[in-house]
């Protein structure tokens, strides 16, 4: 690993100043960054350790019923916060379906948003990757495309965003709070990640030095708590990235769907909100026919980026299943295998 300057700022201002210089990177949990540094995928000249910055580690309940999650809140602390899990069960389920207990104990909320793709060619430093080296080419094109995108990709990059957490967050209209040299601002999570287009290296709206300070879920997101699930299809029962996943949340009033939230993971360069599919569900009954129709809508724009057409149909089925699971009701207790189709839900459902 290259040598780097290690700085441990005491304030936001110091942090932002230190990280604004070329080659600087923020270090929080480090679970993704260290892996990338070891592989030589990134070689920052300076690490700005923000893990001790004050005021970023709290889960705050807002007066309007929303929640503000400090960027340094660890994945495990958030998932195991009983109030949070009660109000936003799909988010907790998504968190617990990701990585392993040891990684969740280090990984932070802010870091999860910024984790890099698992595209094998991004990690293959001897090969070409437009994300690593703009203009170098994309060796994922024409390669093994099983993990590649079917939505939102471009000729320059077909990598997917690997987060589970973000999928549930984006479904529930999460907002990202950002601090930078120009002060603080906020962006809906849906707009936070960029599509690759011709500049796949620019993965988010963050400018150099800008720092995620919190993620907010609006009060309305909690109104789905009785019908919210995360479903993740993977090659192992646990501890694997999604081949494809979906978060589904419904508000059901008098037997009809009053509101729906759907997002997909593992299929696009960013956590993929499926708004057309959501609209298709408004006012209809929570039944399989409508879920299938919504699933069709969610994948309407999908096209294979290689030999991965199977993912389109698979993602449709995952969306339909996630909706069915959500309609059946959130389990009173998170299943032993979060997000897994092999978690038959025992006990009480919130129906």
């Amino acid at each position, binding site marked *: *690993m*290259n*040598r780097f300057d290690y700085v441990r700022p005491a304030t936001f201002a110091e942090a932002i100043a230190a990280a604004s210089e070329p080659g600087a990177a923020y270090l929080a949990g480090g679970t993704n960054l260290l892996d990338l540094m070891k592989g*030589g995928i990134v070689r920052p000249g300076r690490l700005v350790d923000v893990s001790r910055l004050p005021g970023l580690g709290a889960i705050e309940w807002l007066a309007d019923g929303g929640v503000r999650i400090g960027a340094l809140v660890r994945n495990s602390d958030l998932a195991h916060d009983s109030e949070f899990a009660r109000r936003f069960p799909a988010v907790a389920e998504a968190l617990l379906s990701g990585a392993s207990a040891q990684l969740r104990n280090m990984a932070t909320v802010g870091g999860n948003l910024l984790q890099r793709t*698992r595209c*094998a*060619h991004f990690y*293959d*430093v*001897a*090969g070409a990757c437009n994300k690593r080296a703009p203009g170098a080419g994309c*060796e994922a094109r*024409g*390669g*093994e495309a*099983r993990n590649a995108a079917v939505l939102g990709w471009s000729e320059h990059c077909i990598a997917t965003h690997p987060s589970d957490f973000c999928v549930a967050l984006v479904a529930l209209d999460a907002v990202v709070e950002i601090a930078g040299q120009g002060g603080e601002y906020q962006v809906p999570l849906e707009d936070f990640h960029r599509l690759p287009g011709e500049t796949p290296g620019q993965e988010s709206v963050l400018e150099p030095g800008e720092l995620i300070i919190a993620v907010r879920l609006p009060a309305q997101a909690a109104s789905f708590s009785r019908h919210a699930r995360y479903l993740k*299809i*993977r*090659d*192992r*029962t*646990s*501890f*694997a990235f999604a*081949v494809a996943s979906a978060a589904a949340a419904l508000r059901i009033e008098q037997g009809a769907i009053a509101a729906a939230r759907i997002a997909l993971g593992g299929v696009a360069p960013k956590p993929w909100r499926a708004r057309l599919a959501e609209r298709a569900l408004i006012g209809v009954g929570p039944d399989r026919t409508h879920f299938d129709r919504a699933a069709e809508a969610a994948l309407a724009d999908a096209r294979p980026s290689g030999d991965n057409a*199977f*993912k389109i*149909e*698979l993602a449709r*089925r*995952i969306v*339909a*299943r996630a909706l069915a699971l959500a309609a059946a009701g959130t389990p009173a207790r998170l299943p032993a*295998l979060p997000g*897994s*189709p*092999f978690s*038959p839900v025992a006990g009480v459902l919130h129906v």
Partner: protein
Amino acid sequence: MSEIVLSATPAHLRHGSNIGQPLTRRDGILKVTGGARFAADNHPPGMLYAVLAVSSVARGRVAALDVAAAKAHPGIVEIMTSANKPPLALDPDAKTNPFMRRLELLQNDRVRYANQPIAVVIAETLEAATEGAALLSPRYEEEAPRVRLDAAESFVPPAVGVGHPSEAEIGDVETGLAGSLRRIEATYETPTQFHNPMEPHAIVAAWDGDALTVDTPSQGLAMAQARIAELFGIPAENVLVRSPFLGGGFGCKGLFTGPQVLGIMAARLVGRPVKLVLRREQMFGPVGHRAPTQQTLRLGTDADGALLGLSHHTRTASSTFDDFFEPASDVSHTLYASPAIRTSYEAVRLDTGTPTFMRAPGEASGSIALESAIDEMAEACGMDPLAFRLRNYAELEPISGKPFSSKALRACYAEGAERFGWKARPLRPREMRDASGLLVGWGVGTATFPALMFQGQARAVIRKDGTGIVETGAQDMGQGAWTALAQIAADGLGLSMEQMEFRSGASNLPDAGIAGGSAHTATAGMAVAGAGADAIAKLAALATGDERSALFGAGNAGVIARDGRLFRRDDESRSESYADILNRAALAEIEGRGSSAADPIAQANYAMHAHGAVFAEVKVDPELGQIRVTRLVGAFAAGRIINPRLVRSQYYGGMIWGVSFALHEHGEIDPRSGRPMNPNLGEYHVPVNADIPSIEAILVAEEDRHVNALGIKGVGEIAITGTAGAVANAVWHATGRRIRRFPITLERLTEPAPR
């Protein structure tokens, strides 16, 4: 054969009572407290860290290395390249016996596979060495790599596995198939697999003049010692290889590998001890792998489901520069009776590292294909897969016509099926669902593995205080050699485990043979039993020839050794302690030697294999294709069981490897670059705990009077065979989809069926 054959009574009956006991591991406390010292845990004074720089191309030559940039990095001590490597006494490409591999030891600028070592960076710290390797920024002259089975012209290899013929036939398969009422033909594909023991290869090498001490995991201490001595041109006794614990081996620590030698060369170059540990991605290339296969099976039966012909053809690959051909077809030699069997091979040479033995080499990859094909044949006959297997049960080894030295496979089928509840299985697929609508399927597979023995030696000592020492250079890679061999050793000396010191895991002890081929307990066990018997015989001679002894004159009747005493066989009231015998003879100790080897006469007369039957239940989500094994029952018969607790662990582990083979493992190699694309444990999937159900392993009683005097067969590899096929067959039974490309992944169950 060794001395122990002199008595018709097995050692455990003659002597003590440790064999057969489910003792916990004697090394267990060290392992739960962090006290077990693995190779990389050693840190001799003055030690430097070495890191490999490896090739990112699969074929070509290294055109340039930026040695200056690397050397400029603070802490770098030396960069070892082909220009400054220390001289070797033997060409790394020379091959003086089949149990060695041609190695990449910086002999030239040629690159023959991705991740081949091209330089070694030696530094004061691991961090500096690692960065130094990155700073070498190699440039290559690259040639188009050939990494797929269809990438080159095939040829018939001269031999497969370890010297097995690449063609074998009994009867006339074409006639048998032509005369069959029902036939199937199917081609199965198995992928490249990498051993991936949890402990990467590591070596700590320290020279003292022309003497060398290395700490490194080795499944074959004596072979490692000899290989090192030969390469460096020093006497073997100058080389001490210590390997008390291996963090898993599975075959890739069997033959000494290039990176290990490079660690020794680095230490020689800098004149200081050096530690070299492979990074995980470097485990995907220079230390061997299981080669991919395409296996075509053709089977035919008569109207009653009796096989009339079985043809098993394997296409596999070796490297461009050395030979190891996965002997996948050979499994068809032994399992199912057929008047006509033909096995054959073709192979290609690819720009990969040389494949090697990987847990059940040939048997694992061959078994999943054969067991799938047998199931397809059973289906074609409309027969229950277990009934079909019993219909074609081999009473004699089919390929040789020899009787089996023992074969309790019927009992394995029966006990396993009973435990599993097999008889409730519907014949047709896709007929079972669980309460949540998941498809449920049941499959069976037959397990088999040859009962091998290598040559081993041991030394036993009885001291005048009545305690004993037994020494053999065995290797414990997790299977439990420290415990099982000590049990045999204690019985051999007629001592309790506490009265005996068991020394192992170093090359300055008698050669215990390799820990491979599931033969280590038999090989090393027979040697330690023989050494004990020899020591006891000498002790008995002292006593029975001494008129002051209570045992005087017992020579013809014989004595029994037990609890530190010799007893007259025909009158157990007459006995004497070891201490008394030795003290009276004024001897500080008495030494016995033992050696072991397979008995050529028994081998000529008998086919020797362990057997088993594995039953699997899987659940498959009908829409999403995700698969999970939900039950596994294996019943295995492997001769005498030295320690049922350890053996059960081996069966569990093997069965999980079988699950892994069927559903998970797959080395992804980019055909354009020749590079492994998942050279890490995040993407090279092996099962995690949540993938594995509660497993049952039934130890089926089996007595074998021919394999060796202790009656030991091997248990380390057999459970992969059978299990992989059982899982694949269960997936078919759940879904009605026969997947012939392994591992079975979810999209293969959800994509539209080919018409």
